[in-house]
């Protein structure tokens, strides 16, 4: 039975999981959740994710939420098929993948999310972007990317010389960031820029990016 993902293609967290599906070449069905109608806050969806956030995964009797937990599960369950995203045959490499997944979750994401929200989501909601929030977040993101730049000087990808779930998790937010003036934080750092061009040109992500349209941008 195919995996069922409840979400919407333009959502960063949904597309994180979709990219993982494509890398693993697994069959799946995307069940749309209408965010504008508040469907994710209604009881039928809250059964799947009590926090009322997309996406949620159904695999037979199993229901999972939190995009990074879902990708870890999919990468583990299908470790024998498609591209190995978690280096499951090498404990040390697998551990480094997890380190950089946590870095994305706790360092990168908190800095980049407000920029994307203010620049692309707020206008859709009829609000004007708060430039002070953008500026503070760009500064924060720059510091995180300084560490990335040093790291990527020594290795081709974050966890080592292999593409992994750690890199993949960065794709959706960075894709949207690159459509804003804040894209300069990536362009100014040569190794980060080369890494971004590399990971965003993978066929799995290109397919997903086609569905990532935010207010026509």
């Amino acid at each position, binding site marked *: 039975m195919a995996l069922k993902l409840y979400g919407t293609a333009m959502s960063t967290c949904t597309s994180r999981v979709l990219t993982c599906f494509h890398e693993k070449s697994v069959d799946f069905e995307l069940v749309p959740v209408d965010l504008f109608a508040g469907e994710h806050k209604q009881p039928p969806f809250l059964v799947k994710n009590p926090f009322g956030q997309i996406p949620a995964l159904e695999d037979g009797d*199993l229901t999972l939420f939190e995009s990074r937990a879902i990708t*870890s599960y999919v990468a583990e369950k299908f470790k024998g098929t498609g591209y190995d995203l978690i280096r499951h045959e090498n404990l040390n490499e697998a551990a480094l993948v*997890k380190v950089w997944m946590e870095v994305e979750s706790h*360092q990168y994401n908190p800095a980049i999310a407000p920029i994307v929200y203010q620049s692309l989501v707020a206008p859709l909601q009829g609000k004007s972007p708060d430039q002070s929030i953008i500026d503070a977040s760009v500064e924060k993101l720059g510091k995180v990317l300084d560490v990335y730049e040093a790291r990527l000087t020594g290795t081709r990808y974050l966890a080592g010389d292999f593409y992994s779930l750690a890199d993949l998790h960065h794709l959706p937010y960075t894709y949207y960031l690159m459509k804003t003036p804040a894209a300069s934080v990536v362009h100014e750092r040569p190794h980060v820029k080369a890494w971004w061009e590399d990971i965003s040109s993978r066929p799995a992500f290109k397919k997903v990016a086609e569905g990532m349209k935010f207010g026509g941008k």
Partner: protein
Amino acid sequence: MLRYVTDKKQLLLQNPAVKMKFQAVTLKVRQRSSRCPLKIVESKAKYRLIDLPEEHYQKANKVVDIDGVFGEDGDRKEDNNEDIPEDYKRIKHSALAILQWVYGPPLSTAVSRVLATLLEKDVPFQIIPVDMSKGEHKKPDYLKIQPFGQVPAFQDESISLFESRSICRYVCEKYADKGNKGLYGTNPLEKASIDQWVEAEGQSFGPPSGALVFQLAFAPRMNIPQDQGAIKQNEEKLQKVLDIYERRLGESRFLAGDEFTFADLSHLPNGDYLVNATDKGHLFTSRENVGRWWNEISDRESWKKVVEMRKSS
């Protein structure tokens, strides 16, 4: 003996942070509860950090053999000096191999998450102090092992890691058969459920509870003025998260199911400060299921030891 110390020095010097650090750390490593207590003692010799009580030589070796995870033969190559007894070489490597180094003070929430995991897994470790008041976490030697300049960092004989939750996962997977075997689940389905709640902790519970702990417990001690707006906003956020936990914990004894796991453990550091060092403990105790869950998880021996370590640090 002197040559032994020299060998150790060479080995440790390969590690810049250790080189920086080994002034004198007293530690007690309790290996296999009372069966085989390995005591690593403070030493005046700068680079000598391990000294095993003689009576435990045999047992120590046995522990290593049983576990079968340590003692790569390749590690012994450096010991080609004939005047060092064979037994001593073996002990040295056995003892060295069981060391896991955790950099950072137990007072830190992220450090204590790692300590609780190591204690649950019955994996011996050594704490290397990082004096954050002196900015040691921002110095070049430390940044080599933790490029973001935060605590904790972690090293063992084969790897250097950071980010507390990934250190915990590594320890759980490397020592799957030690201590609390179900801490990170025993199959992919259990693991997925645990990961899901660890993410909920990291993304939903952590930010508001961490902000409250900072504002209410740490800011006054650091003479930083409290931000009442932030306190109110984060309390509201945490209320909503704990309402979801209340329902979840009405369905199952622990977050990921009917067993205590890493998902519950990961809540202990912030939860403990919130309940015991702020006036917001009622957020937990006023909720029936959350209160019951909190009493149970904070009463675990592993966590009580971490709290003791905080007090004595």
